[in-house]
C-alpha cells in the first residue's frame, strides 16, 4: 500500500505546487488575464 500513499502525497504536492507555484510565476488565471486584457500602447 506504500505506493498508493506516496502517490496520494505526490498528488497533494503537485497540486500545491501548481496552485501556488504557477500563480507566483505569473501563470495564474488572474495574472494571465491581466496581461492579456490591458493594452499598453
Amino acid at each position: 500500500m506504500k505506493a498508493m500513499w506516496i502517490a496520494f502525497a505526490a498528488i497533494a504536492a503537485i497540486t500545491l505546487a501548481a496552485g501556488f507555484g504557477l500563480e507566483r510565476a505569473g501563470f495564474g488565471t488572474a495574472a494571465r488575464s491581466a496581461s492579456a486584457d490591458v493594452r499598453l500602447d
Partner: protein
Amino acid sequence: MLRAVLALILSLVLASALPAQEAAPPVDRAATGGAPTLADILARQEAQKVDDSARRQAIGDPANAAPITAPLGTLGGASDPDLWRALRFNEANVTSTARNPAATVLIQDGGMTWLEFRRGPLARYGAWLLGGTLVALALFYLIRGRIRIDGEKTGRRVLRFTSFERFGHWLLAGSFLLLGVTGLITLFGRTVIIPALGKEAFAPLALASKWIHNNVAWAFMLGLAIVILAWTFQNLPNRHDLKWLAVGGGLFSKGVHPPAKKFNAGQKLIFWGVVVLGLSISVSGLSLLFPFEMPLFAKTFGVLNDLGAPGWVGLDPLPTQLTAQEEMQLAQAWHGIVAFVFLAMILAHIYLGSIGMEGAFDAMGSGEVEEQWAREHHSLWLDEVKAREAEAPKAAHPAE
C-alpha cells in the same frame, strides 16, 4: 487526427443530444422588406433553423451614407438596428482597449445554446449514465455475487505490479477521483447542491472545487503519461483477447477462466479507454485552463469538412468561423461529455477491482496476488512469470 475524430464524435453526440434543428419553410419577406416576419419568429421559437441571411447582410453601408450636411447624415450609412445586427452577427468592426480575444465580441448568442446544453442534456444524460451504471453494477453484484477464487488458495504470492506501476496507477486514480468529484460539484452546484445546502455553504465548496480541479489536473496528466509508458506494450491486442471476449471473460458464469496474459481483453478495453478519454479530456482541459489560448475546434471542423465527415452522418458542414467564446463553449461541452463516459467506465473498473472480485485489489494494493488468482485470471502471464523464475537461477549461475 485525434482531434478530428473527437470533433466528429462530439458533433454526433451533440446532434443526438440537442433537439434537431429542422429548416423552417421558406418565408416571403417582401412585405417586411427582408426583416423578420411573424413566421420567422414562430419558427425560431420552435427551434427551427431560420434563414437569417437577410439580417446578416442588413448592417448598413458607409458608402451609401448621406452627406454629413444632409438629414441623418451623421449616422454614417448605418442605423442603430444596422449596428446591433452587425454586433449580433459578429460583423461589426469592433475595437477595444482590451486585447483579450473575446473582448471584441459584444453579443454572442451561442452562450445560450451552451448554457441550455450544459444544464439540460449534459447534466440530465450524464446523471442517467452514472446512475444507470451504478444500478447495473448493483444488479450484477446481486445476481453474480462476488467473483471468488474458484480453486484452492496456494498461499504463494506473485508480484503482479511493481511499485512504480502502482505509483502511476494511484497517481492517475487519485487525481481522477478528485477531478470527478469536483467536476460534478461544479456541474450540479446550482441544480442540486444549492437547493440542498444553500448558497452560503456552496460558495466555499465551489471555490475549493475550482481550485482543486484546476491544479490536480497536472497530477492526472503525469499519471496518465506514466501509465501509457508503463503498460502500452502489454495492452496491444492478441489472439487470446477474442477467446476472452467470446466467453465474457468468465465474468458471467462461475468456473470459466479464459486464458490471458498480463492484461485480459477487458482490462485492455479499460486501458485504451483511459488512454483515449484521458488524452481527450486533458487536451480539452488545457484549452479551458488557458482560456482563448488553445482553440481546438475551428481547425478541427475544417479538417473534418475537408474529409467530408459531416456528410457521412447527414450533417451540414461544421462551422469553421468560431468566436473565441464558441471555442470555449465547445471545449467545455466536450470536456463534460468525455468526463461522464470516463466516470461510468471507471465506476465499473473500481467495482471489479475491489468488491467485485476476490483478490483483485491486492494487485494494486500490495502488488502481489495469490498464485491461484493469477492462475484463474491471467494463466498465460503466470506461466511466463514461472518460466522466468525457472530461468533466473540458471542465468545467475551460468558456470554450474
